[in-house]
């Protein structure tokens, strides 16, 4: 595809593959509230590798969106990131994201790391036409060549399979949900960021529209080698698009590994619980089971392993000692005292119960 190769100016990602473009080191985020400190993210250490798609999965309150917003420093004023470090690397330079001043931070956002938000309608200014918003963005980043910007944006609209003439002078409300999501993707690519963070990119879209967005994201990944971080509660997004998966629970990464390991050989009871709770559409009937209880109160977290009150494998130790991420296989880590029991359970009972169609 000759057209797509022009869209990305950062073809060198694979050469500097030894250094991950983004490293999170022991990141904590808490929100101050009247009821106390909400510990939304607690000690996340994670590398985003060059050219990979990493999916952060977890339920509401697991800290995945907070983590995403923390990376681009868009958290509300009541949030505090401490302790922790976020290191960004591009072409040999290294940035400490959390200590960036206002000016360099604006440069970092969008040019280095772009975020596509959950609600595509709210991401647009309702009184600006799409083009005006794009032009504002370009100018804010000191790109003042109007025809160049327009040319680039038209290319991007074609890449996301939209009719440029229909979209460029439209207001957001004139576009359908799927068109808005694709327009937003095109805008996020405007300054050729190295990293794309996508928060629930297909949630609230219809099935056939979801499919076009997933196919489009796959092209970004496979043809343009973007480094992508997906944030989703939907396991299917991870299964469709991720190279690696990080399962989050109560603000921590509790399991991290290649997508096939997490889906077929999970070693953390929470990952297994999620897989056993989600039906697939193809094939015969599956027996599903849900995880008992509810997500924890982030102000008064349980002692020991935060999942132990809901965990079928929990022992006395789990209520006392909090497990850390330990290696359980090739590039596969889990934070659980009972990873062997989880493995035995899968060997004995299978991953999911299936009845013939």
């Amino acid at each position, binding site marked *: 595809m000759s057209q797509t190769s022009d869209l990305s100016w950062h073809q060198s990602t694979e050469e500097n593959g030894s250094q991950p473009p983004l490293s999170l080191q022991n990141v904590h985020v808490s929100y101050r509230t009247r009821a106390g400190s909400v510990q939304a993210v607690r000690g996340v250490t994670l590398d985003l590798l060059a050219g990979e798609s990493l999916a952060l999965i977890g*339920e*509401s309150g697991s800290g995945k969106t907070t983590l995403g917003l923390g990376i681009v420093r868009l958290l509300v004023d009541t949030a505090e990131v401490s302790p922790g470090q976020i290191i960004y690397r591009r072409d040999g330079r290294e940035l400490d994201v959390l200590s960036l001043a206002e000016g360099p931070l604006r440069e970092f956002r969008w040019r280095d790391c772009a975020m596509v938000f959950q609600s595509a309608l709210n991401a647009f200014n309702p009184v600006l036409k799409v083009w005006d918003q794009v032009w504002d963005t370009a100018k804010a980043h000191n790109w003042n060549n109007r025809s160049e910007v327009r040319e680039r944006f038209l290319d991007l609209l074609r890449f996301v*399979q939209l009719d440029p003439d229909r979209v460029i002078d439209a207001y957001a409300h004139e576009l*359908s949900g*799927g068109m808005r999501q694709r327009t937003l993707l095109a805008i996020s690519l405007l300054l050729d960021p190295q990293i794309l963070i996508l928060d629930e990119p*297909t949630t609230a879209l*219809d*099935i*056939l*529209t*979801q*499919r*076009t967005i*997933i*196919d489009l994201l796959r092209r970004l990944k496979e043809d343009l080698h973007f480094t992508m971080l997906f944030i989703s*509660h*939907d*396991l*299917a*997004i*991870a*299964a*469709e698009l991720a190279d690696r998966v990080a399962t989050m629970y109560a603000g921590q990464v509790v399991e991290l590994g290649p*997508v*096939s390991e997490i*889906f*077929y050989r999970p070693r953390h009871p929470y990952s297994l*619980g*999620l*897989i056993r*709770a*989600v*039906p*697939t*559409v*193809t*094939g*015969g*009937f*599956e027996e*599903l*089971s*849900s*995880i*008992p209880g*509810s*997500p924890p109160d982030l102000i008064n977290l349980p002692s020991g392993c935060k999942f132990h009150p809901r965990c079928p494998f929990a022992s006395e130790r789990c209520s006392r000692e909090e497990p850390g991420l330990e290696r359980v296989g090739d590039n596969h880590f889990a934070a659980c005292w009972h990873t062997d029991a989880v493995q035995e359970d899968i060997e004995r009972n299978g991953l999911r119960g299936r009845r013939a*169609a």
Partner: protein
Amino acid sequence: MAPIIELRNVTKYFGSGRDQVTAVDAISLDIEAGEIVCLVGESGCGKSTTGRMVVGLLPPSEGQILYQGQDISAMERADYQDYRRAVQIIHQDPYASLNPTQTVRQMITAPLLRHQTQRGGPTANGSGRRGKRRDAERRAAELLEIVDLTPVADFLDKYPHQLSGGQRQRVSVARALTVEPKFIVADEAVSMVDVSIRVSLLNMLYRLKDEFDVTFLFITHDLALAKYFAWEGRITVMYLGRIVEEGPTPRLITDSRHPYTQALLGAVPEADPELARKKVHVELRSAEIPSLLNLPAGCTFHPRCPYFVPGQCDARVPALESIADGGTVACPVRKAESIQLV
């Protein structure tokens, strides 16, 4: 016996003149007591409008809705009240459907007290107001237990904002059960609930079917959930206000015939990486859904359909025809053609 709910050529228009849209276009549907029927389709297909008409929240523009064989628009007052009590709805958004200023106890006892008053007669605890209140409290506690909000004492005095989404939805179900319904429309009832909790909610609803003889019309955009909940029932697929295919769930999931159903099944993202990679996606001719204000002639799916036959599909609205393996399909071109998605 007559079906518990019957829709005969039901049509619903919204607006008028040039702005008139046909949300539901002459659909017919019989639901037998004890059945589980799933209504599946994308936004704008008319599934929620249909659900709201079934419970009497919207009058049909044309056609009839029958409850136990009786046209609800021609019922005597007492029969109509009986129907409105027997047919309940659980809404999608448990954050919007519960009164934020009432406790769980108030929300559940209020309909119980009103219901008792209507029935009249002495109760186990005497006929006084206090006796009625005691009865209502006792029943409220039973209902919370049925929807697994236990220990009950922890929940009775909670306000909605103190509950999680899943717990709120259980309160909605308990509230619907106060009037001993025979038929429940569950409109995207688990869509806003976390994945780990969805299954237990569905299993709870399923239990109600057996324990209380409740018949379900389950409305969802999520085919995987429809498959799980209605495996022993039927799925009806709607597109732009019309039913395009229906049939027993196992047949519809494994051997669908309408190109729209096939496109949907192929498009659903799968929570299984191998399956996601192998699955065939039906290529549509257009990604855009036509506007309800300006529907295509003939089969409304024809501008997107990969099997479009000019002169046929864009000329006549296809009728639902029976197919051998169960159910009906509105596609004369493809009614005999299965496709292999994996």
